[in-house]
């Protein structure tokens, strides 16, 4: 996984509530067997007309926001489907950080496994950052995960909380599977104990 490093980038405001993962990436684009290349379909039906031309009103089509690296979003962003294609599409587009009051659980988990930082903050602070984001190309936020700080365009610093395990993984670009393999012995000992306490558990075989 890519390491998360401090950056300063344009933030785009997306205040709508309950932006679901079907909106982030509609199901018809899930037919890929790759992780890459989904950025062009990010927010597809919000972003493009049916003839493929861009919808002028959509925030990421506006010149100031075409290179947004931060999204300031409405409540419950990422609800619905567990598709990891949603964070893949965001990441492929260039988004590194999302800021909101709350995110759907599975989307939150999936994002952190793709090097993206999701920051939860109280409503008044998200509202203030949403106003910052509306300043367009001047709406540059600095995101410092090491210090757990966001620096606003006016220089004000906002502190944020983050799960220590996720922070460590993001800062070091760690692969979860590699970490879990270090505990292989614990898994083996769990399996041997469990095998004797629940002998009725099903066993499938490849045909």
């Amino acid at each position, binding site marked *: 996984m890519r390491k998360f490093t401090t950056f300063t980038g344009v933030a785009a405001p997306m205040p709508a509530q309950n932006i679901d993962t079907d909106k982030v990436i509609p199901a018809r684009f899930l037919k890929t067997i790759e992780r890459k290349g989904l950025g062009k379909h990010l927010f597809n039906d919000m972003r493009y007309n049916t003839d493929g031309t861009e919808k002028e009103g959509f925030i990421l089509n506006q010149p100031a926001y075409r290179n947004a690296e931060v999204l300031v979003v409405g409540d419950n962003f990422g609800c619905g489907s*567990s*598709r990891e294609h949603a964070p893949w599409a965001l990441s492929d587009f260039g988004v590194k950080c999302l800021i909101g009051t709350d995110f759907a659980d599975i989307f939150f*988990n999936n994002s952190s496994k793709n090097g993206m930082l999701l920051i939860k903050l109280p409503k008044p602070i998200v509202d203030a950052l949403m106003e910052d984001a509306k300043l367009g190309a001047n709406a540059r936020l600095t995101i410092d995960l090491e210090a757990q700080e966001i620096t606003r365009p006016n220089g004000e610093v906002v502190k944020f909380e983050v799960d220590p395990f996720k922070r460590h993984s993001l800062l070091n670009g760690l692969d979860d*599977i590699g970490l879990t393999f270090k505990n292989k012995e614990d898994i083996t000992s769990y399996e041997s104990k469990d095998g004797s306490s629940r002998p009725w558990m099903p066993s499938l075989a*490849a045909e």
Partner: protein
Amino acid sequence: MAKPRTLFDKIWANHVVRTEDDGTALIYIDLHLAHEVTSPQAFAGLREAGRKLRRPDRTLAVADHNIPTTDRSKGIEDPESRLQVETLEANVKEFGVPYFPVDDIRQGIVHIIGPEQGLTQPGMTVVCGDSHTSTHGAFGALAFGIGTSEVEHVFATQTLVQKPAKNMRVTVKGAPPAGTTAKDLILAIIGKIGTAGGTGHVIEFAGDAIKNLSMEGRMTVCNMSIEAGARAGMIAPDETTFEYLKGKPYAPKAGAWEQAVQYWSSLPSDPGAVYDTEVELDAADIVPYVTWGTSPQDALPITATVPKAEDFPDPDRQAGIARSIEYMGLTGGMPIQDIKVDTVFIGSCTNGRLEDIRAAAAIAKGRKVASSVKALVVPGSGLVKEAAEAEGLDKILIEAGFEWREPGCSMCLAMNADKLKPGERSASTSNRNFEGRQGPGGRTHLVSPAMAAAAAIKGHLADVREFLA
């Protein structure tokens, strides 16, 4: 005395492999279900790292999202859908994964076939790269959807890194009135707590109205837990659960059965167990429900009217309501029963089981689908289809003008050829009414199977109770 524990607490404790100082736990996964959409990148990850599956004997793969529900003898026409299914077939061969092929009678929607085969059992941890994995919680299992990185993690280690969830109990007391089904109960619950109401929680559904549901009904309720934002939904295992499981292909066999039942019987929440959040509903107040908007929380009684944006004080919510009304092509204040439908879809992991098809057939029997409506019934599995045909339900439905299809996810998310055209409107027994969910520009109203059949006959959203007299 030990602190009273919830069903969730007990299953969690039984699966902790190790815990870190900050509370992050490595939990063991008993059963991993996989399908063609969210697994290819996980298999590719294993291949790149030279890793194997740790427990193929606890893994089952099936293709369900992309497959045609019409004549399958010609294979899959869409090249991308075909590639995804072929990739799954190559991966299960390479990694030795148990697999139900497309032409196997046991093939079907992953969340229908796990329970049908007796693979889903009380006290288990069950995962799948699919948010509707919550369905399996109906058996008193801890079952939740995961992303593809986590699918790869389970393939390689049979574990997941997790933080414990909070406990929520949703109690539906009393008995529901005639015409109200499991689908109406869960729509009413989501309408009450909202689409983020369960975030961070595992919901335990309780109360007489839940306890008196069949396993099929319980699966419908748990299936849509994710639509309330919950990590999982679950229902305490009881005699109904054991009766359903007995004799299923992968259920414990004689000898082991008694031991399993004894263990399963120890799982229900202890008296006095404390929940972080409690919600209570009275089933007597829940009439047949329908969604009018583009979020599952936009659920109202069929007798209601479409809301007006100006009735909501919160400006963000007001904007959301206005956007939903516009997308859905409705007018605030109009009676919901005046909404005409073009398509009726009966199926999905929410309502694609035998009981659901029976409910639709009971309404359809001796009646005709309105000439303006295209109606399709898609059984959840080959075995559901076979059982329905053995009861003659296919004939009743075909006679009434419904199309009788092959099993799969179908129009629930329109990854195969079954989809709405822009502007078309459906009454659907599926789980999501998001914009474009059933096809770009499509408009979805979520209902129970009986309500879907009623809408097909009337040509508009209708109150199924008119058919019960």
